[in-house]
């Protein structure tokens, strides 16, 4: 009965004798998908965010629209995990289509934070981070469009990495905002994150935006990357002797006092270990949030047009008032009206809000004012980051400006929720890699004797994450620096 939550708990077939309770609501579907070969991940259990397609296993995206959707094919990352020996243990809860930072917009209800009971797990990959924090999986995959891996990793006291755009295949990831998002790993340690990244990274001919880590010789900062021969797991050496860390002062200003303290303690530790810290200010960064939301909503409005209730999604018959709103429903001569009813019934409020705002920002008369300016801001942010990396090895900030809010505390004010993403979105605009690791002295951090296995405990400090941002395809450096806090 008592199954230990270590990799040793799987039997020869990779089955768990007994499933431990999912008391935090991390999973939407618990179904074991066996590995297809032995490899570096043999015996490792991995949970998948429920927007990553799994052949024959339902993939809901946290939405009523896809409550019964069963993909006919596997995402590339699923095949790669299986070929590396991993056992997939289920599909995790998420904000609907990835739109949210608390996992409260899930049609199936929120996920609770295992390390801060009563509080949100973060999002949108909240179920993935909670599954790892609660020890229900050794690792998990999330997706990060504007912070959706790093945010829940920070809130749940685990490590999460958003890879450089193009390092990991998006084939089989249900799209929200293609130009911004990447699939990436969540695990208890930087080394664990590196181990999973080793398995999933690399070019895929079914995603034309993927590139080999070594095949990117046109930008300046690339010569620091060790390239495809290096192992990401092996980069977790904890050695920061001689490393230069740029502290993004603009992102500290908007952060809560508790967060700033934990962040500064962490920088002190890195300095004590031989790193040098200097302040960095980026002029463009205050425009990143607005630019991110305009671009993400614009892409969402077109990506989600496919959910029309014909090829998949709720059927017209499932929608109240469509077939049975009286005999004069003959104005159903317009397909658009039938679509509009299906989409009203299938999408939650946050998804509708983003589709409408995206449609608005792209509509005639507003395109230049919003979308074109957002693209200017994106190029400006990217340029600012490139310039900063000429002087520093990594940039650092608190991952989230706040500690995890209580469930229900913030969900009614969309703009306030969007503002929580201020520290994470610049990375997506600039296509860069970034890791979030627990700050020293906070739950999930081993540093200073804190017990990583602690879950809950009311008088404990709330989880705080430190974010390290690297140059393009320089995942090794952010993993190395992140591992120095463990």
């Amino acid at each position, binding site marked *: 009965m008592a199954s230990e939550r270590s990799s040793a708990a799987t039997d020869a077939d990779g089955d768990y004798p007994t499933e431990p309770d999912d008391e935090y609501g991390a999973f939407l579907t618990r179904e074991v998908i066996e590995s297809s070969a032995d490899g570096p991940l043999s015996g490792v259990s991995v949970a998948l965010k429920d927007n990553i397609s799994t052949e024959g296993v339902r993939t809901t995206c946290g939405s009523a629209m896809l409550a019964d959707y069963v993909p006919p094919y596997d995402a590339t990352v699923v095949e790669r995990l299986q070929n590396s020996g991993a056992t997939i243990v289920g599909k995790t809860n998420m904000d609907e289509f990835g739109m949210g930072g608390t996992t409260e917009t899930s049609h199936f209800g929120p996920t609770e934070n295992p390390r801060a009971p009563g509080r949100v797990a973060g999002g949108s990959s909240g179920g993935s981070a909670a599954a790892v924090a609660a020890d229900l999986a050794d690792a998990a995959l999330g997706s990060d469009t504007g912070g959706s891996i790093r945010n829940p990793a920070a809130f749940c006291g685990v490590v999460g990495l958003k890879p450089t755009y193009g390092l990991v295949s998006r084939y089989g990831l249900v799209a929200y905002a293609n130009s911004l998002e990447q699939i990436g790993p969540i695990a208890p340690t930087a080394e664990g994150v590196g181990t999973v990244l080793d398995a999933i990274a690399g070019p895929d001919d079914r995603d034309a935006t993927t590139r080999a880590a070594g095949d990117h010789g046109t930008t300046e900062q690339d010569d620091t990357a060790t390239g495809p021969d290096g192992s990401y797991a092996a980069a977790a050496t904890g050695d920061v002797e001689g490393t230069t860390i740029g502290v993004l002062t603009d992102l500290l200003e908007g952060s809560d006092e508790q967060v700033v303290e934990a962040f500064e303690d962490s920088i002190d530790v890195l300095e004590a270990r031989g790193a040098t810290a200097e302040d960095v200010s980026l002029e463009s960064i*205050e425009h990143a949030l607005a630019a991110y939301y305009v671009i993400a909503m614009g892409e969402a409005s077109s990506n989600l047009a496919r959910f029309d209730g014909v090829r998949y999604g709720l059927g017209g018959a499932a929608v109240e008032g469509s077939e049975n709103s009286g005999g004069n429903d003959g104005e159903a001569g317009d397909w658009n009206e039938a679509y509009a009813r299906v*989409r*009203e019934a299938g999408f939650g409020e946050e998804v509708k809000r983003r*589709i409408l705002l995206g449609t608005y920002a792209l*509509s005639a008369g507003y395109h230049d004012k919003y979308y074109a300016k957002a693209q200017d801001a994106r190029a400006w942010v990217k340029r600012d980051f490139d310039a900063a990396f000429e002087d520093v090895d990594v940039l650092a900030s608190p991952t989230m400006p706040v500690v995890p809010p209580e469930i229900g505390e913030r969900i009614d004010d969309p703009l306030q929720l969007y503002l929580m993403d201020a520290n994470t979105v610049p990375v997506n605009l600039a296509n860069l890699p970034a890791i979030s690791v627990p700050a020293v002295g906070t739950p999930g951090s081993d540093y200073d004797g804190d017990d990583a296995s602690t879950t809950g405990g009311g008088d404990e400090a709330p989880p705080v994450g430190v974010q390290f941002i690297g140059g393009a395809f320089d995942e090794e450096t952010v993993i190395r620096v992140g591992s120095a806090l463990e």
Partner: protein
Amino acid sequence: MSEERTDEESVTEEGVTAADVRHVAGLARVDVAADESERFAEQFVAILEHFETLDEVPETDAEPDLTNVLRADEVRDGLSQEEALRNAPETEDGYFKGPRVS
């Protein structure tokens, strides 16, 4: 409600009305309930005001790092008809079935 008016109106000066929300909802093919369009209108004013900060952004050229990714034009396996239809709420004779039009 008239499309022309909505397109030309300045958001900052006039604010966003529930009618504007319904107009955009029509473009996006999403029905919204009356109370939802009222609530959205209020929220959109605050969110669009935040987006106004983009006015200060200077024109900046992106320097995209582009590579040719064309592949050889070879036939590969795709989904079977049965697989493609499997998630459709309604099918008939191997086709997707759309809403009734008359």
